[in-house]
């Protein structure tokens, strides 16, 4: 999944074996999801879809994959195309270390390979109609993995657990002693420190952002996220946190917020009706969560 993973399970001493068995299953679940959806593994369904781009060959997909593709489709439509799982090919023309566009003509050529509307999804399966195009469901799968792990733990009778996959955190119940789980949101200036904490019971919080991967472009620090319409970096929020009852919804909303510019990101977040927080590069915040906490601006 490309990031740190932490699963905390609290059970009475007599049920330690249940906790151990559940964690083994969690590992198997994560490995299975990675095997199915990682574009770095040749046998994954995503890699198979990408390998057949432009060859008029459909790749069969199961109901789980169809549901994730349906979510991607909804996000693409509702974000006016800003969320686009086919945008990844454009990363080839940017050097994120130096902040340079490597090859402008290459960017223009690759633009033709970007576009979710060129993806055909039928009862036969999935087909990328443009040769050279690629899709990447990594962002959605990571959040889906967090929810799937949480669901798996509940099905095994675990009532107190905290699932943290990089910036996506799901709280199962409260802690065993009844106290809420306490989750920290990273300070963009000092990512190893938290700028504030959430007390969580049966909810998820996802943080999307580029504070660790920003670079200087034309005198401004911009995100590594690229606008699919232009191929250029998005001048958007440094860090967005969203709270929802599932990581998939929280993460999807947070991710799309980061694809908007500074002015439109709050509008998108308000449309969701979910609690949210935007942090700038100096750790200053805006949003309903910030307002409620009377955090410094």
């Amino acid at each position, binding site marked *: 999944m490309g990031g740190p993973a932490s699963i905390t399970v609290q059970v009475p001493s007599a049920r330690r074996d249940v906790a151990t068995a559940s964690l083994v299953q969690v590992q198997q679940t994560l490995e299975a999801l990675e095997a199915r959806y990682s574009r770095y593994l040749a046998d994954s369904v995503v890699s198979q879809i990408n390998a057949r781009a432009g060859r008029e060959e459909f790749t069969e997909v199961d109901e789980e994959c169809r549901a994730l593709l349906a979510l991607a489709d909804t996000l693409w439509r509702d974000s006016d195309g800003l969320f686009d799982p086919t945008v990844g090919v454009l990363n080839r023309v940017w050097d994120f270390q130096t902040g340079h566009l490597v090859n402008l003509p290459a960017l223009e050529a690759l633009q033709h390979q970007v576009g979710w509307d060129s993806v055909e999804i039928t009862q036969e399966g999935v087909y990328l109609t443009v040769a050279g195009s690629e899709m990447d469901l990594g962002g959605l799968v990571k959040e889906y993995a967090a929810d799937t792990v949480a669901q798996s733990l509940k099905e095994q009778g675990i009532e107190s657990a905290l699932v943290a996959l990089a910036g996506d955190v799901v709280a199962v119940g409260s802690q065993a002693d009844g106290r809420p789980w306490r989750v920290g949101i990273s300070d963009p200036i000092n990512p190893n420190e938290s700028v504030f904490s959430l007390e969580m019971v049966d909810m998820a919080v996802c943080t999307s952002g580029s504070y660790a991967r920003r670079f200087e472009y034309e005198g401004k620090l911009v995100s590594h996220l690229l606008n699919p319409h232009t191929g250029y970096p998005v001048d958007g929020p440094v860090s967005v946190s969203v709270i929802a009852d599932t990581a998939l919804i929280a993460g999807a909303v947070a991710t799309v917020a980061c694809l908007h510019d500074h002015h439109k990101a709050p509008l998108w977040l308000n449309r969701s*009706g979910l609690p949210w927080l935007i942090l700038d590069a100096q750790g200053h915040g805006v949003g309903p969560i910030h307002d409620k906490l009377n955090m410094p601006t």
Partner: protein
Amino acid sequence: MAVTKPSSDAMRLSGSSPLVRRLKQSVALLPAYAATATADAPPTYTEMGLRYSRYSEDSLADNQRLFGASDRYDINITQLWLEAPVGDNWSIAIDVQNDYQTGASPWFVGVQRDGQPGIIMSGASIQDNRVEVGVTTRYFWADGNAGLNITHSDEDDYEALSWSADMAWNSDDNARTWSASVSQSNDTVQPTQEKIPVFIDREDIDTQSAYFGVSQILSRTAIFRVGLSYTYSDGYLTDPYKLRDKRPSDHSRWAFTTGYRKHLVDMGATVQADYRFYSDDWGMDSHTLTLGWSQPLGRHTLKPYVRYYSQRAADFFDPVADFTADYYADDYRLSAFGALTVGLNLQVQLGDWVAEAQVERYRSNNNWGLYEGDAAPALVDFWRGTIGLTWRFE
């Protein structure tokens, strides 16, 4: 360091914005999200639509007609509707329909020289315009929804004001939904005397109805439903434009309905079957069986369907009415007959727009029915075509 509390306003998870509801619908079938799927919620978009239909009855054959025009009814129907979410728990819908009707209708049935019944038509073509406006408001909660509708319909010779209330509620596992509704309509008929005489000035009709039904999700790909309705009308139920027509002043009807939907995963299609049995205290029974196939074509959908209908005649129906009886009617709609409808519906998704086209052919014949009975000479055949455009936005 600032700390939020789970119970604080900032942490209150509404999750019911149209955007979030759309996202949840996308993944509702996955086990990890079944519990968070909102069983009942306002629409996720605002929808506005415009639809035009043309209904055209076949002309009468010369050997069926004794006198009068051969052209029957043509009706042009224009519908405009709007449905929108209001806040987190409400929706509102407005429907406006305009029918413009021209043509002639059977006035009465006489006897031709060869002894066969022949139709005397109503003479020159009538022109009638009807406008109907309905407003529905609906409230949604986690386990169900309830709606209230008020509709007013007005034309030259008929006015109707009706209201209805309905409710649907879901079981805890969302696998079963119970539905119930009641309605009341107060109508006034004031026939216009033009080419044919009429014998009433103004009369009233009151109708009440109730419905109760259950739908059950049988599996992830199949759903089944049953329902029962009762309708009672009293007032002037005779057709004022038919010379030989006298009907009871009350009318009780029952209808049993059932339906089945099955999604065929391998084909990506859905098969639909619906059946209705009707019975009333005028002696009429009917059966309706509809079979349909919904086939996705990329983002579009094609739906062919076929419908079979069979009706038993009303007790007081005769092809040539016996007006010495207490009640009598030669109206073909009360005769024994069978009918077959074949139709095709196409929906084309164009971004935020959906274009729709439908064509339907209806043929009826006394010999196609399941019940014995004398044939009415004026059984109708018709074509119906529809085009529509729907726009959804947030």
